[in-house]
């Protein structure tokens, strides 16, 4: 009786599923959602809708902003945007409220005798320019620096690079993106020779299996995750969550696999071992398009000042690589990683199955890693061995966290070693940039100076005396924060901060400049899939606030660079963008002209013959392929992608008797980055008012800690006390804790470690040792 009932139930269920899937295929052409939203808007509202990219994360959703009487009053998802097809997340829907916080900075403030005094914009800009001149005269060019972020629009970053590298002549240009996706960049450069993903978001519509490497997409890239869920309803795709912590993503995934911190390196190698052992290698692809290399090991962790590292790549054979992988059998790796042999083989079998298209997705889990470059390489290895790359649905895809981390920091090149096209170490690249910039080539120094962590160390030491910080909040985001905050406050340092709200970073400033944010000015962002998107000015900025671009131009003029910055106030964004395009004038990186960006929801570069290139390195889609084969990895001189031999190495600081827990940090869906904007949006603040520490329920029970109890976390850097969260948003594994970093009143980065990947110089915010006590 019981069994027949079950049979009948499961039969009915299957029938229902089958019909539902059939119906779904015809029902959802995309995500299309804006029409639904339209119903909620009063009929008599006389709103003017303008398109633009969302202000927040690197997904780059298209939004339509409704304005009325000069104020932004509503947001819709842009149904024409191929990114989000009309859907947003809670941050996007409420993004415009970030413009109207009561404590918006509206006038320049200058610190005089410990108090901030209102001044005029002209006076503040004069002061900045004279301080820069004075510092250069006294301490040299390399004593002045600028620190921006992936929230810089393309023209902001371009003006900064041109002023500092081209005109002043220092490579002291860095950005928050160093803390966020530098490992993704070095991963791409070492494996392919060219930065940024080969595929695009359309891969989601083609892939059969999604493997999320340490990526809580349901919260961090919710709109893309909704596209995954959509595909699961439509086509029954599989979602595998491979992570160190149980999250919303784990519960939504078809399979959740947990691993111990840092052992992703070993598991990726074990997957390659299985692929080779089972004969799943795409031999013709590997033969034609791949070569093998190894680099130095035991690189260290960059904990000491002036640490340097240069990798020495060495060619190896496929046989050497196979021998190396003998150490990474699933059995051995299982013991190290806590992942069962069965689960390793399970993942390998999906990657190996020639009939399954696999998309790997990752973000900070792999990038904020002391071996971040390596783990990026290792995931590419899996895709290269199986030939599952550069085709619709077969796609290793590195996601970003900031709206223009790709567009500005990576493409304009606002990092110490970068130029818009190429690197400062290359003479031809320097000459090429200097010619467009209208400066002598000798102006651009051939040696990179400081990466971000080292830049703040240099500020502490006194090697840097002047720093201009725009659109970012390093006094919340720097690891081992206390050292860098104390350093910035030292006598004889001059700090300028351009921002929209007071933050812990404006607290250390000598001059605070009010900025026009997002739709209060004109600009462009570039998202994770190489899509450049334009937005016009839709509302007026408050008070005397002006855009970061115009601030830089005004200071450049005061420094005597009128010739290099001849732009007119009304048209400067267009002029700069047109000039910037010259740097990328080739079929490998062409940027779409401004008219195109204005007329449609962005375009993917390389934009060639009026068309976006959706899949690079694939001759069918990419006109830059020239070797007559199906694929051409033209970023490398021999046209071959590199499969890297990279071992497992332990983290910089692992739990011991004194500090027995792992400390992991990250984000939540409600807040973006340091919360300086989202915490001023009432809806988001009320849903997530403060940071907390997540504990495993067993650990909590042992220490008799309940949700809301005060918990003290102590590391070798210091201690903080914050409320506990047990079995709520996420559940860390036993002997691990998780803290979100958005809360400036609970600065978790005061106790994190400033170890970084020696190749990318990106710090690891996900792993250090901590002691946990009931406070």
């Amino acid at each position, binding site marked *: 009786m019981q069994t027949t009932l079950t049979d009948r139930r499961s039969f009915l269920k299957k029938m*229902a599923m089958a019909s*539902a899937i059939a119906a779904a295929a015809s029902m959802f052409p995309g995500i299309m959602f804006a029409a639904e939203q339209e119903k909620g808007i009063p009929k008599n509202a006389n709103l003017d809708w303008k398109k633009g990219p969302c202000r927040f994360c690197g997904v780059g959703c298209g939004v339509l902003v409704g304005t009325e009487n000069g104020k932004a009053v509503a947001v819709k998802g842009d149904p024409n945007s191929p990114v989000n097809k009309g859907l947003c997340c809670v941050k996007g829907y409420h993004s415009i409220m970030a413009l109207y916080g009561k404590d918006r900075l509206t006038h320049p403030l200058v610190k005089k005798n410990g108090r901030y005094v209102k001044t005029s914009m002209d006076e503040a800009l004069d002061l900045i320019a004279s301080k820069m001149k004075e510092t250069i005269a006294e301490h040299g060019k390399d004593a002045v620096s600028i620190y921006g972020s992936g929230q810089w629009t393309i023209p902001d970053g371009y003006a900064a690079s041109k002023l500092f590298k081209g005109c002043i002549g220092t490579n002291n240009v860095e950005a928050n993106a160093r803390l966020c996706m530098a490992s993704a960049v070095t991963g791409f450069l070492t494996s392919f020779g060219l930065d940024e993903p080969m595929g695009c978001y359309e891969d989601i519509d083609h892939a059969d299996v999604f493997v999320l490497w340490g990526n809580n997409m349901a919260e961090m890239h919710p709109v893309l995750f909704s596209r995954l*869920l959509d595909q699961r309803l439509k086509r029954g795709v599989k979602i595998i969550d491979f992570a160190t912590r149980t999250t919303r993503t784990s519960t939504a995934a078809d399979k959740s696999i947990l691993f111990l911190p840092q052992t992703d390196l070993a598991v990726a190698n074990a997957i390659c071992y299985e692929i080779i052992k089972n004969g799943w290698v795409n031999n013709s692809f590997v033969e034609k398009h791949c070569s093998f290399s190894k680099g130095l090991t035991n690189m260290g962790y960059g904990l000491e000042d002036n640490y340097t590292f240069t990798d020495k790549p060495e060619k190896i054979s496929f046989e050497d690589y196979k021998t190396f992988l003998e150490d990474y059998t699933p059995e051995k790796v299982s013991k190290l990683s806590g992942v069962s*042999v069965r689960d390793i083989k399970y993942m390998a079998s999906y990657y190996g199955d020639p009939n399954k298209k696999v998309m790997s997705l990752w973000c900070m889990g792999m990038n904020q890693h002391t071996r971040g470059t390596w783990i990026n390489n290792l995931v590419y290895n899996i895709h290269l061995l199986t030939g599952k790359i550069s085709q619709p649905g077969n796609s290793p895809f590195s996601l970003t966290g900031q709206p223009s981390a790709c567009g500005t920091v990576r493409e304009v090149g606002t990092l110490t070693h970068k130029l818009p096209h190429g690197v400062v170490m290359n003479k031809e690249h320097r000459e090429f940039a200097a010619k467009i910039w209208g400066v002598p080539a000798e102006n651009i120094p051939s040696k990179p100076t400081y990466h971000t962590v080292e830049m703040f160390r240099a500020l502490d030491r006194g090697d840097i005396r002047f720093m201009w910080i725009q659109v970012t909040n390093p006094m919340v985001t720097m690891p081992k924060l206390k050292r860098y905050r104390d350093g910035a406050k030292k006598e004889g340092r001059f700090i300028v901060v351009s921002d929209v709200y007071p933050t812990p970073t404006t607290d250390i400033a000598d001059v605070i400049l009010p900025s026009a944010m997002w739709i209060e000015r004109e600009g462009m962002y570039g998202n994770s899939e190489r899509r450049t998107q334009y937005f016009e000015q839709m509302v007026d900025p408050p008070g005397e606030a002006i855009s970061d671009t115009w601030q830089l131009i005004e200071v450049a003029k005061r420094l005597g660079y009128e010739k290099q910055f001849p732009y007119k106030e009304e048209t400067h964004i267009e002029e700069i963008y047109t000039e910037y395009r010259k740097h990328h004038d080739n079929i490998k990186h062409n940027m779409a002209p401004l008219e195109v960006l204005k007329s449609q929801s962005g375009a993917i570069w390389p934009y060639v013959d009026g068309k976006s290139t959706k899949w690079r390195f694939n001759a069918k889609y990419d006109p830059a392929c020239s070797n007559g084969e199906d694929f051409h990895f033209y970023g490398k001189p021999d046209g071959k992608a590199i499969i890297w031999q990279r071992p497992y190495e332990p983290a910089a600081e692992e739990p011991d008797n004194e500090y027995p827990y792992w400390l992991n940090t990250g984000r939540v869906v409600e807040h973006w980055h340091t919360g300086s904007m989202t915490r001023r949006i009432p809806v988001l*603040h009320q*849903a997530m*008012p403060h940071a907390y520490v997540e504990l495993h329920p067993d650990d909590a029970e042992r220490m008799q800690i309940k949700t809301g109890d005060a918990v003290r976390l102590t590391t070798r850097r210091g201690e903080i006390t914050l409320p506990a969260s047990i079995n709520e948003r*996420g*559940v860390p594994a036993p002997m691990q804790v998780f803290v979100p970093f958005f809360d400036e009143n609970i600065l978790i980065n005061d106790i994190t470690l400033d170890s970084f990947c020696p190749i990318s110089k990106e710090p690891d915010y996900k792993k250090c040792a901590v002691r946990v006590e009931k406070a």
Partner: protein
Amino acid sequence: MRKRLGIISLFALLFIGFVVVWNYSYEQGLEGPYIPVESNSSRTLIPSESGVFRQSENALDFNQMPIDEAHQRSLETYYDNRAYPGAPPSIPHPVQKERDLGGNVCLQCHQSGGFVQKFDAYAPISPHPEMINCRQCHVTQNTKGLFAETNFTKVSPPEVGVNNALPGSPPMIPHLLSMRESCLSCHVGPSAPKEIRVTHPERINCRQCHVPNTVEHDQIEVFSRNLEESYE
């Protein structure tokens, strides 16, 4: 002799077989310290928020169900059946077995819902079908009378249509989520009160757009900074 040899070789074979099998299973045992890091815990490790995804596999079915105008519930009847907003509803119909916990008896109708001829209504879906001691919280109403009058006053339930921060923005969640993490239970399907039935049940990551505005509501102050310096 030959017979004995046969028996000996049979045993020898059995012995070899045993050694092989034992070895294999021993190796297997070594190979698989299957430690998905959580497994040494006996409790269910599901963040309380996971409920949003729980009924996702039925989402498409819900999407396709026609609206049965004649048998819709409304918010009024929904709250009539509760002592206060958020209280466990009472059981408005006779129950089969007084001695039963509830469990499968209740879940027959309340796990997946469906039309019940006898009561001429659609069975509401439980947002927490894993809790089977139903009648711990849900009790029948066997009399309309009172033992003594009460001064208890029922607070008004949250209103519908006023929870958007901006015109057209997704409404916030005006109620607490405890025991009601599975949004689909009450917000989709023919048993959902008509005022709160969603149009897009296939979007199962509900809290991508809708966030609660009731977390310790009164205690949440406007975000403010711990200021060291004073700004003029």
